[in-house]
């Protein structure tokens, strides 16, 4: 055996699994196809500016604390989180009004109270009543391995509050907002969370209110940019004795008699191991790396049945000044009905809408060292179809970028156009080819209820022994979700390796 375990992919999940396994004394190799670590939470440099590839918001920093503590290390030695206070600014797309959303629930209730006293009371009531339940549920869900019915039941058993209030969580998000609130600003502000959670308000579950609660528990940005998270994790991996190989794509998982026995690299080199952990999305993992010939027909059918979570474009702008902002992030605010109609035009009809700028973020607002002295940077995201109707992303992306910049200039940041020194864009097609993310979708698979928990690919493969999965396609995802899932996959893989060593 070359290694005890090979980890495919150095996203947040893969690094977390690799470091956890290495810290337990298993010989561990993490192989990453690209030249940097982090996957969706990675970074790149251009003309002296450092940009975040995708993720730019950190919630639940305790996932990182837990991860480092599990390695016997201190998180502070690897990554520093800066708190976002206020959380973000909202721009009402109908009136142009700008609203700062504070970082505590009480202050947010007061902010809502400026528009409607009734809404403020409802917000306080809801958060007081259900906040602790949401808190507990997020914690339990994100730390319990998933894949089987009994895992799902375990989550509910450990968080009975979520069952008692199931009628609330099963109400469509948009309806819940209508039932609880009356003012368009309250509905617009909270409606955004539905989209951030991966579905439009009419289809999202009421449970997504947990994001509102979680963000108010603390929203952060790492010093040095999002890339500081995977860089810190990669350093920790090496500190605990693991190996990392960049620019090393995996072409196949070696499967023999329904058991994973290692991988074949793109250059044809076989590397054997007692267990394989995959951070690659489950669809390319099973269909390309494992191969349908090793899978039962039902599994292939299940894999093909998944719908994508939303995909998006990210535009990156280097500026010759730090743009005037009151918070790191600016979110566009629209009514839940408008969000729905945008959503269906984009994802059902494949219509690219360059003006659908939903989030503008400035990394240099938090850490000026990410740009040359005196300069600043911006990134903005638009929700965008995986395959645009009537063309391909490579044909339309530069025009799309320019139209997005026009929108930025007109609504979010007047005259920003005059300050651009470098610009580029990543489209769903880019995310798909560079990160092997099917459809370029940002959360691995759809965030719908029937694609979660036991209905999402399990952390322990049910059809290939010795194969474990972590990351976006296995767990309700986000950076902390991926970090947690890596630890859980490592726990399951540890048992397997011990068993195989003993055998």
């Amino acid at each position, binding site marked *: 055996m070359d290694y005890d375990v090979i980890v495919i992919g150095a996203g947040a999940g893969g690094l977390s699994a690799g470091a956890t396994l290495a810290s337990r004394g298993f010989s561990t190799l993490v192989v990453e196809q690209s030249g940097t670590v982090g996957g969706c939470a990675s970074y790149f440099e251009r003309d002296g500016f450092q940009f975040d590839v995708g993720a730019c918001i950190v919630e639940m920093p305790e996932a990182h604390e837990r991860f480092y503590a599990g390695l016997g290390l201190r998180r502070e030695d690897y990554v520093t989180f800066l708190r976002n206070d206020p959380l973000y600014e909202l721009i009402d797309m109908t009136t142009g009004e700008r609203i700062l959303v504070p970082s505590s629930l009480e202050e947010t209730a007061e902010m809502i109270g400026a528009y409607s006293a009734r809404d403020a009371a409802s917000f306080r009531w809801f958060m007081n009543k259900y906040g602790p339940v949401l808190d507990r549920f997020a914690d339990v869900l994100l730390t319990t391995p998933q894949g089987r019915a009994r895992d799902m039941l375990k989550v509910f058993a450990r968080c009975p509050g979520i069952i008692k209030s199931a009628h609330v969580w099963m109400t469509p998000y948009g309806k819940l907002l209508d039932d609880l609130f009356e003012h368009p600003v309250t509905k617009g502000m909270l409606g955004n969370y539905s989209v951030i959670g991966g579905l439009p308000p009419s289809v999202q579950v009421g449970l997504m209110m947990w994001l509102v609660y979680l963000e108010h528990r603390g929203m952060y940005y790492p010093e040095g940019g999002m890339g500081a998270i995977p860089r810190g994790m990669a350093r920790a991996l090496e500190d605990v004795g693991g190996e990392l190989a960049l620019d090393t794509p995996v072409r196949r998982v070696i499967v023999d008699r329904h058991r994973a026995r290692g991988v074949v690299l793109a250059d044809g080199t076989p590397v054997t191991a007692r267990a394989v952990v995959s951070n690659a999305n489950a669809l390319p993992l099973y269909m390309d790396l494992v191969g349908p010939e090793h899978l039962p027909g039902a*599994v292939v059918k299940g894999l093909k049945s998944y719908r994508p979570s939303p995909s998006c474009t990210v535009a990156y702008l280097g500026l010759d000044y730090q743009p005037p902002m009151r918070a790191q992030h600016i979110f566009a605010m629209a009514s839940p009905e408008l969000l729905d109609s945008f959503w269906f035009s984009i994802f059902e009809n494949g219509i690219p809408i360059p003006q659908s700028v939903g989030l503008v973020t400035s990394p240099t607002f938090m850490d000026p060292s990410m740009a040359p002295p005196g300069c600043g940077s911006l990134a903005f995201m638009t929700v965008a179809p995986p395959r645009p109707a009537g063309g391909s992303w490579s044909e339309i992306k530069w025009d799309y970028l320019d139209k997005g910049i026009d929108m930025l200039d007109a609504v979010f940041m007047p005259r920003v156009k005059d300050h651009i020194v470098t610009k580029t864009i990543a489209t769903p097609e880019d995310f798909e080819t560079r990160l092997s993310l099917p459809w370029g979708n940002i959360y691995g698979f759809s965030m719908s209820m029937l694609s979660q928990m036991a209905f999402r690919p399990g952390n322990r493969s049910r059809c290939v022994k010795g194969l474990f999965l972590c990351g976006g396609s296995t767990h309700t995802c986000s950076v902390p979700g991926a970090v947690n899932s890596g630890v859980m996959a490592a726990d399951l893989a540890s048992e397997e390796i011990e068993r195989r060593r003993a055998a």
Partner: protein
Amino acid sequence: MRKSLAIMLSTYLILTGLALEVIAAMNGPIGSLAQRGRTVYPVLACFLVLLLLALVFPALAESDYRKVLRVMLLLSALGMFLIYVFLGFMWMFAGRFAMSVLVAVFLVLYGIALVMLGVFNYFAAQGGYRPFIYSMGRELPYIYYRYRI
């Protein structure tokens, strides 16, 4: 559809479903013509009412629910009719005891289906729930396959 109409339709469907459960539970061995009548006529009446509802209610529903409601009501009416024909046919062959079991099983299952239809209609008739329900409906057939992964 107005909420009051949705409630009316759902209440009817749920009550009919429950009534079928009661008829099933009270069914003893079926022998005499009168006993048969007590079982058969309610089933026939159910069929006719469902047919009538299928003609009236969809016209009162929103465009994205009209077809769904019509198909569901017609299917349940048709199902009821088929049961009626099937039971009539079986009476020629099955004994008293076998027949009573057969009737009870059919009525119980059909009653449950109607109750479920009533509950479904209550939610689906409200615009706030419909996209959510449709989206779940599209994924429901795959959950077994997903579970296998």
